Each structure stands twice: as structure tokens, then as C-alpha cells.
């Protein structure tokens, strides 16, 4: 009996491997499709860039919040740190810009770990409250620290990214940004299914069991809070490079509110849900001309509707529908075969 089970589940692994390959290639094709769609059209480039930035923000939130249940609300600050890192490195130093992405990511991660560490013995509510206050304070800091951040004017005329000795035009850069989103999403989704991801998801529901198994839950939470902040900061850095300017109102607290709901809308079951949610948010808030002002309202209603009708988000709903259809088809086939038998 158990030998059969063992064989069955190793077979399942082989299947998962091929499904994994399909998912990776499929999402790559979609990413390339978006790159082709954006093309030379400036408005579409803007949408693609915003979508990519939101997607990185949502992925940065997905890792600690949707998987481990640790809600940090300082994401506007992490994204801004990524952006200002690019601005400062580009205007005050001669360093290559990729270094700015790294510096921004490290600074954001350190900050996230620090805020998480300060509230590690308190309930999750305090992490949310402290990080929210930090986000508000950081916005004021960006306005007040004129010598560093340029105050209300921000930092302009940021030089474009140079790769292998040649300056990248906006079109190429945005294509690379979309590919970066694809890489990060693939990585986050693989982490979700890894032993680390399993421990992470278990720590959301049964932290005592994860502790008893030998994984320090507070340290694990801090690790993903830092990793999530680094991913969000990369989003801010890429957005700033493409637009060549950053100011204190580029990334506001409003973003965080959107980011919480992106994975819920797209589906929490996979990292791709966060990406899909980000795309939908861009679509709802910017591309629907009729709803111009009420984009956020439409978004809120859409999230509510999705949560009520399909708690697994859009991807979860699609998965359910596929399984149902497949079941129907298999049953139909079986009936046919039975009928064909004499």
C-alpha cells in the first residue's frame, strides 16, 4: 500500500516538473507579449512600466504578508528608497546604476528588518501600526531633508542606465524591466513551493508547530520582511530610472493600500496572482477613461466582488474551473469508452 503511494507521489513530482516548465515558458511568452504590445507607443510603455513597478511591489508584499502573514505597511518607503537610491547615485556619484539597485535593496531590507525586530515580540497589529507610522514619517522626511532629497522638487535629470558601454533607450529599458519582473515572479513562486516556503506558510497558521520543528519563526519573519522590502525597492529603482525623475509624491501611502489587495484580487495561491492583480490595478485605475476619478473605487468594489465570489482570487477561480472542466471531460470520455465496449 505505502510502496504504491511512494511510486504514485514520485510520479506526481514528475508531473509537477512538467507543469512547472509549462508555467515558466507560458509566463515568459506572456511577458514577451507585453513587451511587443508596448513597443514604441509611449502611453503603452507608461502602462507597462507602472504595471511592472506595481507587480514588484505586490511580489514584495506577497512574500511576507500573503505567505507568512506579516503585514508591513511601510512599502511606500521601501519603493521610495529604491527610487532615491537611483536618484542619488545618478546625480551625486559616477557609480554605475545597477549598484544603486543593490544599495536601495540593502537599505530597504535593513530598514524592514529593523522595524520588524522592534515589534518582534508584539502581535502583528503592532508591526502594521509601526510601519504605517514610519511610512507617514518617511514622506515628511523626503519633503524636509532638502539637502539630500531635493525637498518637494525631488531629483531630476537622472541619467539612463548604461549597459556594456551603451545607453539604453526607454523602450529597451522597459523591456528589461518586464523581464526582471518575470524573473522575480518565477523566483518567488518557486520559493513558495520550496521547504522554506512550506515553513513560511505553516508559520502563518501554526507558528508553534514551526518552532517545535526547529525553525525560529521570528528570524524567518524578519528574513522575508527584508526580502520583500528589497523586491519592492527594486521596483522603485527601475521606475525611477525609466522616468529619470523622482519626487516625494511619486510613491505615496496610497500605493500600499493598492498593494495589499493586488495579490487578493489576482489570487493568493501563487506569486503570479500578485502580478495579475498589479496588471488589473493599472488597467482599472489608469486605462479606463470613463472611470478616471473613481478608479480606486472601482478597484475596491472589484476586490470585494472577487473576495465574495471567488476567495481564491482570479487565478484560484480559473484553476477551479479548469479542474471542473477536466473532470467533466474525463468522465465524458470514460462513459464513451464504456459505451464503445460490446
Amino acid at each position, binding site marked *: 500500500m505505502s510502496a504504491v503511494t511512494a511510486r504514485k*507521489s514520485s510520479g506526481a513530482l514528475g508531473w509537477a516538473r512538467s507543469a512547472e516548465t509549462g508555467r515558466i515558458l507560458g509566463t515568459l511568452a506572456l511577458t514577451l507579449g507585453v513587451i511587443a504590445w508596448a513597443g514604441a507607443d509611449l502611453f503603452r510603455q507608461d502602462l507597462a512600466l507602472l504595471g511592472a513597478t506595481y507587480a514588484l511591489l505586490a511580489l514584495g508584499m506577497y512574500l511576507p504578508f500573503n505567505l507568512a502573514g506579516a503585514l508591513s505597511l511601510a512599502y511606500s518607503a521601501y519603493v521610495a528608497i529604491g527610487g532615491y537610491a537611483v536618484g542619488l547615485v545618478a546625480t551625486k556619484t559616477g557609480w554605475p546604476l545597477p549598484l544603486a539597485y543593490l544599495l536601495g535593496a540593502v537599505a530597504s531590507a535593513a530598514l524592514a528588518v529593523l522595524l520588524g525586530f522592534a515589534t518582534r515580540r508584539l502581535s502583528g497589529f503592532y508591526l502594521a501600526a509601526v510601519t504605517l507610522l514610519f511610512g507617514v514619517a518617511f514622506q515628511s522626511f523626503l519633503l524636509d531633508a532638502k539637502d539630500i532629497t531635493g525637498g518637494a522638487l525631488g531629483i531630476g535629470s537622472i541619467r539612463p542606465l548604461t549597459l556594456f558601454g551603451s545607453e539604453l533607450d526607454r523602450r529597451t529599458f522597459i523591456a528589461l524591466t518586464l523581464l526582471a519582473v518575470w524573473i522575480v515572479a518565477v523566483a518567488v513562486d518557486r520559493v513558495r513551493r520550496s*521547504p522554506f516556503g*512550506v515553513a513560511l506558510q505553516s508559520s502563518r497558521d501554526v507558528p508553534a*508547530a514551526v518552532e*517545535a520543528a526547529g*525553525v525560529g519563526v521570528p528570524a*524567518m519573519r524578519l528574513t522575508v520582511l527584508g526580502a520583500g522590502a528589497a523586491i519592492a525597492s527594486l521596483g522603485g529603482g527601475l521606475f525611477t530610472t525609466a522616468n529619470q525623475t523622482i519626487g516625494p509624491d511619486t510613491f505615496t501611502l496610497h500605493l500600499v493600500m493598492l498593494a495589499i489587495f493586488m495579490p487578493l484580487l489576482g489570487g493568493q495561491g501563487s506569486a503570479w496572482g500578485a502580478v495579475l492583480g498589479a496588471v488589473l490595478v493599472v488597467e482599472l485605475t489608469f486605462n479606463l477613461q470613463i472611470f478616471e476619478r473613481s478608479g480606486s473605487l472601482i478597484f475596491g468594489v472589484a476586490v470585494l466582488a472577487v473576495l465574495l465570489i471567488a476567495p481564491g482570487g482570479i487565478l484560484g477561480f480559473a484553476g477551479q474551473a479548469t479542474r471542473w472542466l477536466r473532470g467533466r471531460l474525463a468522465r465524458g470520455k470514460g462513459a464513451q469508452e464504456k459505451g464503445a465496449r460490446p
Partner: protein
Amino acid sequence: MTVLLEGAGLGKSYGGVHAVDDVSLRLSAGEVLGLIGPNGAGKTTLVDLLDGAQPADSGTLSIRGRRLTGPPSRRARAGLARTFQHPHLALDLTVRENVLLGAAAPKLAGVGGLLGGLVAGAFRPSGSRFDGTLHRVAEALDLGDLRRRCGDLTLGEQRLVEVARALAQEPSVLLLDEPFAGADAAGIAAISAAVRAVREQGCGIILVDHNVDIVASLVDRIMLLRFGSVVFDGDPAECMASPEMQDVYFGTGGERVVP
């Protein structure tokens, strides 16, 4: 026999209530120690003190002669594994993933292990290097299809998965807190067989249960707790016949009323 786990003067109070009062215990390799007593006797609190889920007010604890302190994760890495009175499983995850947690946990210890796990996860997500442990444990407890969601299992099946997760840690001391509650006859047989098997490998086991008959058939020694204190410690057959046992379970003494 080598002493695996040794506790001296363990105590824990809530307000004025002594949940565990000056308990000393000693567990040898290959020994099964039964911990019995009525509701509120302090059995689970004692397990929590051993495992670190609750800090002790007093007393010391050592495993293989080394001090055992700190949070449960550190004690788990020193060789301690436990199950919970109410199954603690991630219900959205599969049986395989829940057992995988036990097998993979040592690799995820400390900041280096966590960062390594995060990075490694992006490259090798399947966790298949733990398959050997997973299938051995799954076979020992006859877990069936490992792809089932734990939320879809019966309480008895969940018990088996939880014991499997603890066994996947390959502990030297195993704390089982009422592993038979809610399990069916087949589950009880599977868990009993697993307990005997790991005992053969030199694991020390502390078994907490209400079911005195099952406990007596499995254990080498019994500790009877009442109001947080040890009232009997010795041979199971002697324990069953002892006046303390009569007093605790049947109240023949009648001088104390259990609140």
C-alpha cells in the same frame, strides 16, 4: 542505559496555582515514559516546559548532559520533537508538505540557513532531497496519498500526520501529547508500532495520554501526576495497582475533591 533527558525541580505557576510543582524526571535512551493523570494535573504544561513552548519558573533541564534552554526551535535542533494535544497542521498544505516541514527544519535553522533556504528555494523548489525521509516516515505510519490537503483529513489522520512530522525530525527525544485522541483503531496501531520502532533505535519517548490501557501496554515506566506533582513514578503494573492510582482515578481516598 544512557540518560537522554534530565529535568530537575521544574516548576510553573499561573498566579497562585502550581501547574507544575517541583517535578524531576529522567529519560533514558530506548525508554518509553508514560505521563498520566487527570485533567489539569499539569501533563501538557510539563511537556511545554520540556519543549520550551512555555518558560519554566524554576528548575533545570539537560539533554545528553548539555543544558537545554531557549525557544522550542533551539531545543528541536538539540534533538527534541513534539506533537500537540490539538493537531497543529497547516490545513491549506498537503500531507507531504506538512511532513516535509519536520524533515527540512534543521536546514532552515539560523539566519544563514534561512537565507540559504530562501535562495535555494528559487533554484530547487521541490525539496526532493528529503524524499527518502518522507517516504520512510509515510510508510511507517501508512499515511496514504501524500497529496491530500490536511484540511480534508479526519482528526485521526491529522494525528498521524503530526506524529509523522515529529518523526521526520529524527529526534532523540520524542514528546507525544495525547497522540491517540481521535485516532481510530488502525491509527492507534500505526502510532503504537511507530513508537516501538523508534524506541528500538534508541529514541527516548514521553507519552502523555488519558487512555491508561494503551499507555500501560506501551510504556516501560509511568509517572502519575496530580495537581502538578509526581505522586507515583515506577513500573506500569505496580502503578496500576498502587493506592495512588486508585486515589487519583477512582477517588477511594475521598479526602480531596478535584475542582
